[in-house]
């Protein structure tokens, strides 16, 4: 996995409420903005299908020299649907994940915040690299994904560092130092996911460039084709 999902009971009740309040403070205005732009059936369907793919592809084991890993593709979701809708996708994915023990129910706010950060960085980094600077699809996808997942891994460390682990007598600094080791491991896995995301972006760009907000290359019309060559 590219980032740690926290399980129930890791945080004290106070910190669970704090992260739930932070998520609510972000989601309420987001809902307002998205509602203003109107939730068209297409946007709802696209968000749902992306969430279904994220849940499904997470089950696929990717063999690596370090052992099999599962990829989350959160930055890719950001590149495909944008940060607003991507945040809702992350919330739904975390609900499904909690149902099967991949992250706790009480940790949905903290895990969703991490997912939202990855989605947002994935979207803006890809927009800058690909749409503004015109960098090749693979490198834009790889860099955006690796950057977003690194930020996600650091966000996990920060959230755990601030909240502390329930039952631990270690100081915040010691908890922070401990979890930093995990972040380094996650950054490594994030680079693997970045490589796969780069290839996925290249593939999607060839097959359906409109999904990445790019124009499809124009095909020659049948009328302009040379006669007798078919």
């Amino acid at each position, binding site marked *: 996995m590219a980032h740690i999902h926290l399980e129930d*009971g890791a945080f004290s009740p106070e910190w669970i409420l704090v992260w739930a309040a932070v998520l609510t403070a972000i989601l309420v205005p987001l809902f307002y903005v998205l509602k203003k732009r109107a939730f068209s059936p297409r946007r*709802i369907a696209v968000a749902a299908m992306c969430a279904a793919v994220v849940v499904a*592809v997470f089950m696929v084991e990717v063999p690596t*020299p370090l052992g099999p890993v599962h990829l989350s593709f959160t930055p890719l979701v950001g590149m495909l649907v944008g940060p607003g809708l991507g945040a809702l996708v992350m919330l739904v994915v975390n609900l499904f994940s909690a149902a099967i023990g991949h992250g706790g129910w*009480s940790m949905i706010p903290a895990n969703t915040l991490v997912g939202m950060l990855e989605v947002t960085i994935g979207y803006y980094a890809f927009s800058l690299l690909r749409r503004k600077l015109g960098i090749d699809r693979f490198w834009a996808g790889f860099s955006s994904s690796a950057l977003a997942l690194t930020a996600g891994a650091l966000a996990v460390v920060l959230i755990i560092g601030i909240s502390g682990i329930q*039952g631990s007598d270690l100081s915040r600094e010691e908890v922070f130092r401990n979890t930093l080791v995990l972040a380094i491991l996650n950054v490594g896995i994030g680079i693997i996911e970045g490589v796969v995301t780069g290839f996925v972006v290249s593939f999607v760009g060839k097959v359906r460039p409109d999904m990445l907000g790019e124009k499809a290359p124009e095909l020659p019309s049948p009328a302009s084709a040379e006669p007798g060559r078919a």
Partner: protein
Amino acid sequence: MAKRQLSRHIPDFRFVTFLAESGDSAVHRMNPWTKVALLLVVVALVTTLVNIYSLLLLYAISLVFYGLGRLPYQVLIGWYTMPLVFVLSLAILFLFTEPGDMVVSVNAFGQDVGITEEGLALALTLLLRALAVVTCSLTIFMTTKYEHVAHVASRIMPKTLANIFLLTYRFVFETTDEASDIVDAMRSRGGGLIRSATREGRAFAGIFGLAFVHAFDRAETIAKAMEARGFSGEFPVYGPVARPSLAGYCLVGIGLLFIAISVYSRYISDNPFSWW
């Protein structure tokens, strides 16, 4: 149901739903609202309880609950891998750094490095908390029919979020099947072996990329169908769910009583009966 899974250690939604739709037990027949309330009670208890024996008891109760649902234990053991990895990856460093009495130690570079008693207790506590909730959560999802999940989701979530959630739940099976087909096709041609990072990356990117492309195609078809049917912003949810029975209310009431005791002993006094 033919067992066809992508991973042995991640719960397969197809199998989960199969057990929910075809099973028959006391837990299957339990009111969905009661089950949701019980899940919330367990989550609240694992968060507020600090005593390791209380957590052990809670885990034992959740295992009994799983058994009452007549669900296969061997599947549960495989599905514990993911929460185990998550908890242990977090707890492993605390085993060595948590201040306390050393259980095992090694002298490395002039310093004693070892596992402390408190570190072990912390790891065990985190593990029990996670496993109690995972067991309860899986029991509920493996015994609740899709229409009941849809009903509860449409009642407790904001409309748009409920729509996305229900569409995701509806299409996660097709998407998983599609991914399984492509993975099987790749494996049958000798894929899945580590040859080179580039080749491996490209092969899996093909699978994942195709899944995303098909998802967008499917989303457009669904959107057209929704518009054609005059989608008003809410999916019709069939199969109304009755109110919980008296026994259900009692069960949840007992759970709430335990939460109150747990909160009292956590924040006010170690002895929950000191007020008596």
